[in-house]
């Protein structure tokens, strides 16, 4: 009997099912990925051990940078048809006797955090690119003579009473600025704050307790 020769051939793996699976996974991740929205300022948040996650929806975020400049962001809620941002801007426009076109309202609804006096907001909405937008981000006034931030908070509360408040402060921001904003929020009956921090693991065990004196 002649010896059966095993075929001299490099094995071929059919990759089609693998590619199918990968494509599926890829599509899934691309669709579910929620990208970090563009933020108005570079903020280096302080560290904490907290593992709690920020809510996805119904969140108004107040950014406080190193110099005490304040930026604001509020989302449209879970259902995009509610158009919270648009409604808030309408109320703001009414308060400050300004007019925006329907297109501007619509565009504002799709943008994210901002920080400028209301009179410059029109320019920010109509800006051509993000560089131009960044130049306009000079901070929302929040002193007692012109407390626009207070009104943004007030109208956000009226439009979406379920909105929680997150504060993203820079580690080096002055506490007095943060306190001023917290006081302002408390005046608007917000007593629970989510301070956005960077997670840092810090284990403490029983051995860390100093011996009893």
């Amino acid at each position, binding site marked *: 009997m002649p010896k059966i020769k095993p075929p*001299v*051939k490099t094995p071929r793996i059919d990759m089609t099912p693998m590619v199918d699976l990968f494509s599926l996974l890829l599509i899934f991740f691309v669709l579910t990925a929620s990208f970090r929205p563009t933020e108005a300022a570079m903020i280096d948040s302080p560290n*904490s051990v907290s593992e*709690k996650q920020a809510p996805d929806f119904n969140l108004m975020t107040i950014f406080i940078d190193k110099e005490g400049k304040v930026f604001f962001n509020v989302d449209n809620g879970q259902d995009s048809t509610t158009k919270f941002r648009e409604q808030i801007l309408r109320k703001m426009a009414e308060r400050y006797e300004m007019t925006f076109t329907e297109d501007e309202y619509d565009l504002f609804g799709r943008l994210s955090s901002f920080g400028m006096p209301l009179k410059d907001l029109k320019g920010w909405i109509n800006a051509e690119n993000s560089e131009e937008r960044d130049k306009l981000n000079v901070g929302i006034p929040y002193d007692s003579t012109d407390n626009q931030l207070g009104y943004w908070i007030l109208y956000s509360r009226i439009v979406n009473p379920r909105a929680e408040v997150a504060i993203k*402060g820079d580690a080096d921001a002055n*506490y007095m600025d943060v306190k001023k904003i917290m006081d302002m929020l*408390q005046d608007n009956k917000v007593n629970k704050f989510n301070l956005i921090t960077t997670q840092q693991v810090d284990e403490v065990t029983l051995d*860390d307790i100093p011996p009893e004196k």
Partner: protein
Amino acid sequence: MAQIQTQDPGGKKGSKKRRAKKHPAEIDMTPMVDLMCLLITFFMLTTAFAKAKVMVITMPEKDQKQDEKTAPKISAERTLNILLSGNDEVYYYNGQATPDKQMPQLIKSDFSKDGIRKMLLDRNRELFTKIYEYRDKRIKGEIIVPDTTFENTIKQMKFDDKQGPIVLIKADTAARYKDIVNIIDEMAICNIASYAIVDIGQVESMMIQGVRAGTPLTTYPKIQVREK
């Protein structure tokens, strides 16, 4: 980047089936798979990390009507005052600074492991041990409780605690935001049951200045009362 490999018209010698002949052009999918792998890894990692972590603090409701009578009374022995003043410095003193008593000693500390944390753990020994052991038991699987029960039990332990300090956190005008976050974080690490952020008093600012200058206050200073 797909590559089209044209097969030898004769095929390979050993292959009996000669399936390759039926498909004259074959696409090498390896680079595509490589790229997909990379993309999947990228998306998996970014989606997991994009979520911001938050530290929740609840402040007592501002009540305009609150006066001396309704303000909660706390015992002076359990009171621990922590003063923040920027530069990563943290000061603390026990009890209360009142004109008719001896001035409490203000001690300087920092946010390192041997700094304020050691002192807090020392003061909160009982409650910390209790919660730590309970958590440890759960991790080891000795007790099986759902998350809500677990959290409520810890809450109850904190509520029942009568030994640990009542911490009053006071920040002056030089304090940074990170100081506040750090100290609240220490409260969470050390399982402090009760703490509050309150306004700093004039005497306390003077106490910090005293320690900084190397001349701690020994007597209650005279304060000019600001007229309203």
